[in-house]
């Protein structure tokens, strides 16, 4: 074994949407960071849709951007089609979605990473995480090199013991034609972590030259459009179109006839997939009365004719996939260039994590993305950001950043994961957010950008602009004709300020109610459960509650209150014992 001659602060394993965000922010925060990925050519690859954002997900991307992360900026570079979803509904649930050129997205991200100070990118595969005295010590790779480090962020995606299914065909792989990571799971098991299996799937990709688009309804891009990142202005773009179609009665017949041939029903797959992304065979079984399911053709890029068929996710054998295409008007002669497939992979029960995303039992080990049982690029990116930042902060001896449920979807996501665990791949929905009216696309910066300045993740000179922007929103809320010096806003725009002021006035009463409730929560979250105090040992709390407290190890009284089943009396007792503990230790 070869010992690398340098000790890193943070090693990020995996170069997907979580890993890239983690590596960038860790390095930006000043930690000496190493990103290890199996292939430099698949960095930040969109393994499923060529699209970023969507309802509740677009909000997460805006939050990452407001915090100083990269996802929104890269999205704008690679964008080929913008669409603001839900504009027929209230602004609180507007969500941006952006179709991207897959290759541009990847290489733009790679370029970002290459240009980041403090960041070293390496093509290799991590096979082992070594610890010393319960803390992370080093990462060993397939090429038998040992890299010493103070923290590790593991973002393994679907690669841990990944298995691909197409009908009865089973192949090892984290993505079609990309090797699985078959060694690291054993290392995690050795660390005492509970590993489970989850499943996800993707539809076939087709050659657009063989599609009769006249049978589809085109959906052009919004133009003008709203960039995903505050730091990007609208520029002239080459837009591509998406296309909307439907399955037919014939599709339903094909599905009925060949149901048993799907990997889902052949007995080869036992793990659970996301309910929100059902395969077409799943839809046919669960909703036989719906016969015409929507299909959405998404272009994969500017320099390719490949299209992704949203709504046609499947793990049928390839010949049945052809029969399915033949059943759709306009796809009768379409060529498949890559078949749809399902993939199974290892994940770790996320209740093993603190809200900082650090593993409770291994100091310095952080997890982000699908390893925590989530699905989606945006969910991954949000966690990657938090895990990467907190890994760096830990090494620097600074308290972690834990976002609250009332200030971000990222906070809702992480709190749900570490407090309740998952039983299917977790996707964000706006209905998961209690404070939905507060957590909007338009005010992500007002909610979170102060953190970016606090941790030095945005250029210092912007701080003055941001203060002016906040002031502008306040002024415009009181008087829509208030005079604002546009120059003073820097990257923030007067239009955005006007928009937010208008929305906040519209929702005024509702926001006040939300804020009042949130304040009670904030107070409970401010009561920190001190180091060395074990709430599960408090006398008088219910036995069921003790077990839950021992497992979740909440960091604050607020988090404890969100553990399902804890009674108000349990919390009362814990609260009094915290004060008792504090007084006894103050002596």
């Amino acid at each position, binding site marked *: 074994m070869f010992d690398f001659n340098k000790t890193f602060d943070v090693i990020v394993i995996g170069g997907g949407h979580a890993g890239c965000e983690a590596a960038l922010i860790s390095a930006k925060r000043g930690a000496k960071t190493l990103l290890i990925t199996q292939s430099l050519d698949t960095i930040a690859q969109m393994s499923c*849709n060529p699209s970023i954002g969507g309802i509740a997900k677009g909000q997460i991307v805006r939050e990452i951007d407001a915090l100083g992360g990269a996802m929104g900026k890269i999205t704008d570079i690679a964008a080929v089609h913008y669409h603001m979803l839900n504009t027929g509904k*209230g602004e609180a649930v507007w969500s941006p979605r952006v179709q991207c050129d897959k290759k541009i997205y990847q290489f733009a991200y790679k370029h970002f990473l290459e240009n980041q100070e403090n960041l070293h990118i390496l093509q290799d595969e991590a096979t082992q995480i070594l610890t010393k005295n319960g803390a992370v010590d080093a990462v060993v790779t397939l090429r038998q090199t040992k890299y010493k480090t103070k923290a590790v962020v593991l973002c393994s995606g679907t690669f841990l013991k990944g298995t691909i299914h197409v009908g009865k065909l089973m192949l090892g792989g984290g993505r079609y034609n990309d090797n699985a990571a078959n060694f690291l799971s054993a290392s995690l098991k050795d660390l005492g972590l509970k590993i489970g299996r989850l499943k996800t799937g993707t539809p076939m990709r087709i050659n657009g030259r063989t599609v009769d688009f006249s049978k589809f309804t085109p959906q052009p891009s919004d133009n003008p459009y709203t960039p995903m990142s505050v730091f990007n202005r609208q520029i002239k773009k080459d837009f591509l179109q998406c296309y909307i179609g439907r399955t037919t009665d014939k599709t339903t017949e094909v599905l009925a006839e060949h149901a048993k041939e799907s990997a889902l029903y052949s007995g080869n797959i036992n793990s659970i997939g996301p309910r929100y992304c059902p395969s077409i065979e799943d839809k046919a079984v669960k909703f036989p009365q719906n016969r015409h399911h929507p299909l959405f053709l998404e272009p994969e890029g500017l320099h390719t004719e490949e299209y992704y068929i949203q709504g046609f996710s499947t793990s049928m054998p390839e010949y049945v996939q052809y029969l399915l295409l033949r059943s759709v008007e306009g796809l009768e002669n379409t060529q498949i260039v890559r078949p749809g497939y399902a993939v199974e992979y290892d994940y770790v029960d996320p209740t093993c994590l603190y809200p900082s995303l650090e593993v409770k039992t291994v100091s310095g080990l952080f997890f982000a993305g699908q390893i925590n049982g989530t699905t989606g690029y945006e969910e991954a990116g949000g966690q990657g950001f938090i895990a990467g930042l907190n890994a760096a902060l830990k090494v620097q001896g600074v308290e972690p950043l834990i976002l609250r449920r009332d200030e971000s979807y990222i906070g809702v996501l992480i709190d749900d994961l570490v407090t309740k665990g998952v039983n299917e791949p977790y996707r964000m929905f706006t209905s998961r957010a209690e404070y939905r009216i507060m957590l909007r696309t338009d005010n992500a910066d007002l909610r979170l950008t102060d953190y970016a300045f606090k941790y030095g993740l945005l250029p210092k000179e912007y701080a003055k602009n941001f203060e002016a922007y906040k002031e502008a929103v306040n002024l415009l809320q009181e008087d829509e004709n208030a005079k604002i010096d546009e120059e003073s806003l820097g990257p923030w725009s007067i239009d955005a300020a006007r928009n937010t002021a208008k929305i906040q006035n519209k929702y005024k009463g509702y926001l006040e109610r939300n804020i009042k409730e949130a304040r009670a929560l904030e*107070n409970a979250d401010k009561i920190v459960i001190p180091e060395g105090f074990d709430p599960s040992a408090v006398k008088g709390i219910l036995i069921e509650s003790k077990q839950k407290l021992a497992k979740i190890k909440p960091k604050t009284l607020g988090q404890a209150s969100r553990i399902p089943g804890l009674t108000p009396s349990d*919390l009362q007792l814990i609260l009094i014992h915290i004060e008792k503990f504090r007084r006894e230790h103050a002596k």
Partner: protein
Amino acid sequence: MYSMHDTIAAFATSNGGAVAVLRLSGTLTYQILNKLTKKEFTPRQATFTTIYDGENILDKAIVTYFKAPKSYTGEDVAEISLHAGPYIKSRILELCLALGARNARAGEFSQRAFLNGKMDLVEAQGVLDIISAKNKAAHKAAVNSLEGRLSGKFKQIRQNLTDILAQVEVRIDDTYGEMQPLPHEQTKNALLDVAKESKNLADTFSSGRLVKEGIKVALCGLTNAGKSSLLNKLLGYNRAIVSSQAGTTRDTVEAPLSLLGFDLVLVDTAGIRKTTADEAEIEGINRSRQAIEQADITIFVRDLTLQDKTEEDKFFEEVRQSAKNLITVFNKADKTECGEKEGIIISAKTGQGLENLEKEIIKTLNLGDISGQEVIITSAAHYKALLAAALELESAAKKLADLELCAEHLRTALKELKELIGEVTSEDVLDTIFSKFCVGK
């Protein structure tokens, strides 16, 4: 999560006695006092004043106001001494809740005192003991009554509201335009139906005889069946908050008992004396019959050691026909072996089975049908919650064009009803969505 910064209210005195002291603590205390009495107060001065219920006079009371931090809890505190009638007591609490206070939890005043540095570690131990003792029992009762409720009217409310919320939420998260628009008329009617139902349920509280007079529980059985021991055990079990007093009818004893938030009046009927004098027997039966007819719940105490059961069976048959809600207990389980019985096996002597009996009483109360009508609301907090929920549902019905606002009102209504119908989590809503709608990419 209950807040630690709101204003709490509870009686500081036990049931029984001529005077009841209501205590308030928190930032709204002065404001509430002011609205109740239409008076200003100087701290630490006992003031004789009128308590108003709107424009009507509720009672004359002695009020003392303590300004933070010079008070028991370290917050603004008020103590209101009133006449201890059941109606006055429940009405003043209701008024305080309407003015923004909430029911204090067990030990919560002392908890605040401790957290605000008004109490030392040794004193705090007592608070911890109270909360621990209540925790298990209260949790059990909550689970029991929730289970009971979740089979009837409240289950329907829960399901209807979850379904409507799912209908709204699925449209908010509908990326691919797969859903038809929300059927306005139908949804509006469904919302208003539940709102009306909530109001009707709330109405059963203020107008309820139960609130004014307490819930009557009659104990009957043959003279040596152990009724009195059972009464004493039930009272003794909750001894801290009980004192007994002689009833108005000769030969019956009435004693107030607070059982997990319900105010009961236990009535020990004269029972039947095993005497050969026919006249006395008839007198006993008549008196028992009267008590049983007035009782909301009747507990018939059977004697397991009895050899000849003819007389008991005869009396039981009599009671069974006239009692509104009958609970049968088999007493003296400590003295004899017994198999399965159609009732609750207890020993008034050792206390065996008493917990089951209490559970059964609570279950009967929560299931309603107490006054021959349907479900009856017996707690001020539930009353308040139902009215608040009804308001939210009416607002939701007006916001059907703004899905996200409609959802806000619906979610608030569900939060208000949490104790009555159980928590409806976002996961419950998603489950409903995925089982009913084919959505997703």
